[in-house]
């Protein structure tokens, strides 16, 4: 069993709790290609954990392992202290892990509100029968979940587009709606796959602010992948650095910055 009690305090003074998710010796292969090679790291309650690395380092694969879209050939995933058996992505979602996608996967034909409401699906427990006939329980449940959805819509400042079909929104707003949908699930762990990819500076600042606010307001544990180094270093409490499927660094942003292997593989090559 993992030690659930041990935590740490971040540089800005937030208390980080026990381990929510631990990846232990994960290896993922596609045919003969090893996308992830024997990687271990953990994600702790309340922290913002970043996974960085150059293109093709295996970051997205790692996120897909966490969210159940890929099943690793070797290694074990621990969630809330217990080993997690191989499961389908929807089961992982039902366990309280929500995610966004690099190339936005929203329900284009639905309104923003409907999209956010799908995020509440895991919280709606009434059966097919009472739902079909809209019995009291179903109605009460719908109202309650609607309130949560509206709260999140307010929080992310997308009230003005509540009823707009998602397909009509610009890219930056779509990203925000996707975050809202993931957040609506009130996840124990929120996975963000390149939340700022393809955004301009202003949009990036907005998104950074939202990510920090979400973490601050709801205490949501967040694991994110990001290319923009400046953003990652500002946002995250701890960083895992990957290169060619291997872990080459793990620590606070300042520790990672000083790590020679990381500088060689990633940071140093382009700039210094």
């Amino acid at each position, binding site marked *: 069993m993992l030690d659930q009690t041990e935590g740490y305090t971040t540089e800005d003074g937030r208390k980080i709790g026990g381990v929510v998710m631990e990846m232990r010796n994960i290896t993922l292969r596609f045919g003969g290609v090893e996308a992830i090679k024997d990687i271990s790291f953990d994600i702790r309650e309340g922290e913002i954990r970043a996974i960085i690395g150059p293109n093709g380092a295996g970051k997205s694969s790692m996120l897909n392992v966490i969210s159940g879209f890929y099943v690793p050939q070797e290694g074990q995933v621990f969630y809330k202290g217990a080993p997690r058996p191989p499961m389908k*992505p*929807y089961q992982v979602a039902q366990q309280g892990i929500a995610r966004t*996608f690099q190339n936005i996967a929203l*329900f284009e034909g639905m309104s923003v509100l409907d999209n956010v409401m799908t995020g509440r*699906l895991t919280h*709606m427990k009434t059966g097919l029968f009472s739902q*079909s006939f809209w019995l009291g329980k179903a109605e009460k449940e719908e109202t309650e979940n609607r309130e949560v959805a509206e709260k999140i819509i307010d929080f992310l400042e997308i009230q003005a587009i509540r009823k707009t079909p998602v397909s009509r929104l610009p890219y930056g707003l779509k990203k925000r709606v996707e975050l809202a949908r993931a957040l609506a699930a009130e996840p124990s762990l929120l996975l963000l796959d390149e939340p700022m990819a393809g955004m301009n500076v202003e949009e990036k600042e907005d998104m950074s602010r939202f990510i920090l606010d979400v973490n601050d307001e709801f205490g949501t544990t967040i694991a994110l992948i990001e290319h923009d180094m400046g953003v990652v270093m500002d946002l995250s409490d701890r960083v895992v650095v990957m290169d060619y499927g291997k872990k080459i660094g793990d620590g606070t942003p300042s520790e990672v910055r000083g790590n020679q292997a990381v500088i060689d593989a990633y940071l140093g090559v382009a700039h210094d």
Partner: protein
Amino acid sequence: MPEQLAFTIEVFLNGLMAGVLYALVALGFVLIYKASGIFNFAQGVMALFAAMTLYGIMNGQVPFAHLINAIFGTEIHYFGWNVPALAAILLTIGVMILLAWMVQRFIFRYLVGQEPIILFMATIGLAYFLEGVGDLMWGSDIKTLDVGLPQGINETIDETTFGWFGYGFFIDNLDIVASIVAIILVAALVMFAQYTKQGRAMRAVADDHQAALSVGVSLNFIWILVWSLAGFVALVAGIMWGAKSGVQFSLSLIALKALPVLMLGGFTSIPGAIVGGLIIGVGEKLFEFLIGAPYLGGATENWFAYMLALLFLVFRPQGLFGEKIIERV
């Protein structure tokens, strides 16, 4: 010429009623196509199978009687009881749900992510398989399905219109009932999709599989649900057509009539299926009455719908309500 006008109106109304029945079949196609991208060629056979099962249960037929008798040398055909229509309908719904589960469990679970043409071929296989199983279970003789729906000329309409035009319209009671049932069915389906948790999950799956998984929707469950709904719609269509023209093999061919309806209405639109069905129904009856019979020697009803569909394919391939086909390069 008021008489000619009265005739035309009557033909128009009868066309509407026929259109409702076409729409009912098309609806089953749209449901499955939207949620899973599968064009279900077996929809017509499902309607036939549902009608046969309903007839069999109502009349206490022993399923697979011929098979059992052939193997064991027995002579059993009937249990000797009759099940009331409503109970039999509920039981048939159960059978259609079971069928939906089996279709998903034994066929489409293994074909996830395959090319549309492969999925389509699988449904052709399913159509022939189901046809065979239906015959084996309930026998291939022509059956008259009577669940107690009113039939025959509607006297009120006949008398009222006689008062107005001096000519009584012939509107079949069954057609009126079918229209009402179809309207209720469509309203219920739309409400289900819009306002329930499962409906929302259904729309989610129809829109984006990956995203649906990420919010905790089981694709498998939704697909079984959708096939069940399609089975239910097939049952309703089977009851109406079965009451109108008997339960027999040709019932499964109404699926072919649904094709032009879908091309008109668009494969992805429930309102499209309704409007498409009505246009085809009215169009073919009016065309036959005004142009076909007087000038073209009649029997235009057989090909009018397909010709209309062809025109649509040329000028508006996505149909009236379908999503616009955009190829991004």
